[in-house]
């Protein structure tokens, strides 16, 4: 009896060991290192120098613009994604003919097998001087600036993260029991109230999953603001690259990173709370 219990525990331990080791080495240790760095000082030649100070945190307002851009553009971008993704997911799950569904889903996903870098470069040209502005110049609209604006970054974000929003919403709509929609209509609800009272309500877990997924990835976004924001629209991710690689101010970068992690955790918790409440007692998987 004891032996078999021991064996069971051993098997469990062996099964968990690789994942646990991976997480300890690549997540926990770096996190601890960064936490320690964040209360240290910048060495004169750059990098880290041991200290115990909250000076780096006090200095956070120096990067307020990056925080502000991230805190505004990440939710707005996720919201933009949601507004584009929901109708697509709705069509795919509830309106598209069954035999077309997989093909249409594939068409959405396939472009994303190309590197995001390539596709974002493509947008650089489309939005750049020789792209849409050049076309608009033909019809007399001169001096239109698209590239290197918050709008361009937003567009890139919505484009880049769309599938991550579509898929969870699609799944939750796919699972929706169609008879509930008929029951709602039978009870006198117009299509609009059925959508608001049943369809949307029951797909909210998918919406919250997609939203928090995109939101969290956006908090660390680096590529899109660099290419489409042209150094004018700075994200926290850009600030981190700058601090760690250029100015080699590791402690300050670490303080920003820790703050970012805390913000992400808060976002996750809030999203989870909301979706749990909205969908009744059912548990919600975030990812």
């Amino acid at each position: 009896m004891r032996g078999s219990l021991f064996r069971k525990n051993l098997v469990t331990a062996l099964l968990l060991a690789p994942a646990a080791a991976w997480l300890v080495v690549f997540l926990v240790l770096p996190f601890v290192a960064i936490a320690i760095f964040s209360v240290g000082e910048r060495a004169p030649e750059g990098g880290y120098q041991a200290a115990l100070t909250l000076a780096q945190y006090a200095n956070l307002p120096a990067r307020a613009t990056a925080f502000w851009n991230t805190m505004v553009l990440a939710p707005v971008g996720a919201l933009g994604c949601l507004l584009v993704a929901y109708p697509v997911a709705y069509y795919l799950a509830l309106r598209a003919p069954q035999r077309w569904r997989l093909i249409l889903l594939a068409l959405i996903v396939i472009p994303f097998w190309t590197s995001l870098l390539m596709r974002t470069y493509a947008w650089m040209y489309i939005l750049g001087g020789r792209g849409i502005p050049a076309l608009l110049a033909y019809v007399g609209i001169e001096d239109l600036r698209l590239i290197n604006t918050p709008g361009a970054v937003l567009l890139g974000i919505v484009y880049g993260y769309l599938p991550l929003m579509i898929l969870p919403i699609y799944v939750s709509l796919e699972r929706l029991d169609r008879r509930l929609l008929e029951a709602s209509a039978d009870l006198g609800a117009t299509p609009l109230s059925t959508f608001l009272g049943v369809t949307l309500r029951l797909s909210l877990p998918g919406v919250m999953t997609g939203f928090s997924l995109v939101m969290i990835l956006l908090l660390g976004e680096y590529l899109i603001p660099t290419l489409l924001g042209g150094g004018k629209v700075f994200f926290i991710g850009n600030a981190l690259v700058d601090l760690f690689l250029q100015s080699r101010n590791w402690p300050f970068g670490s303080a920003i990173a820790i703050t970012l992690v805390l913000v992400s955790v808060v976002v996750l918790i809030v999203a989870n709370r909301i979706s749990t409440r909205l969908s009744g007692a059912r548990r919600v998987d975030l990812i």
Partner: protein
Amino acid sequence: MTAVPDIEFRAVTKRYGAVTAVGGIDLAIPPSAFVALLGPSGCGKTTCLRMIGGFEQPSEGQVLIRGNNMAGTPPYRRPVNMVFQQYALFPHLDVEENISYGLRQARPRLSSREISSRAGEALSMVQLAGYGRRKIHELSGGQQQRVALARALVNKPAVLLLDEPLAALDKKLRTDMQIELQNLQREIGITFVLVTHDQEEALSMSDFVCVMNGGRVVQLGQPSEIYDEPADLFVADFVGKTNLVSGKVAALSGDLVEVALADGTVISARKRLPLSRGEAVSVSLRPEALSLSAPGGGALKGIVRNRIFLGSTAEYAIEVQGIGSLLAKADHVIGKGNLFKPGEPVAIGFAAGAPLAFPHPKNNGTNQREDQNAEIPS
């Protein structure tokens, strides 16, 4: 009858692509009746119900509710409510919110006081007072069934549609619900249209049974009529248990027909459909119409193969030479040891007028569809 029927089908046909689910039905369902649409799966009964509810549109013909043509009227504007298979209760709402869902859709809006008092009444009507705040997944199957009933009835529909409402319940609960549904219908006095493939359920609950097969209405009548005077072989076989014995028409006289069975015995049967001399027929003999006695008399002779004693009755499987096995059902009289034993020879008699002769069905017109009422065609 001058009253406008609650539900009327006028030459209604429903096709899905090349498949005809319902083929030209004319039907008038009288007001304040409990009507069962009975038939095997794929007979079109669920499609009919869904056309009343507005979830399907007829390909041809008209569906009228209380005299109004419903063509183009969406489900949410029809004065009917449905109890769905597996109930389709809203999982994100509690019991009371489910029940008041329809009331909240009413325009002009109802006051919240009226909504909650009507929902409360509906809850007590289905004996769930005090369950209002429960979550749906906390309820048993029987309770969910009651919530579904209350959710539909609270809107005071002209007609209540029930789509195999008892199929998911166990036998004991089903019997209780059958009685409760009957009582409810009498209390409220509106028309109930029940779809079922369970002939016992249809016979026991309804005032009228509409037997369907192959997308057509085969017979509409009171349960006893359906049972005693089936319109054709399908009804005779589908409703209740019966013995079907084949034979040939030997002679015709008015409503009666002499049928020569395979073993040479000639029996007298009633006919419900035109027959001609020499035509191959099936004779339907209800098990309870057969009487068993000691060898000597009777129309047929046989040997008891099996006996199932059921208390008030006993069922016998009797082997008749040249005809096959017949099922007989005899009442058991206490103290009168009238049970036959397996292996014992018996004589089989039947009341005059009990046997019914039917022509063999022709193969056209019975375009049976694949199990179509299990899925909702999109």
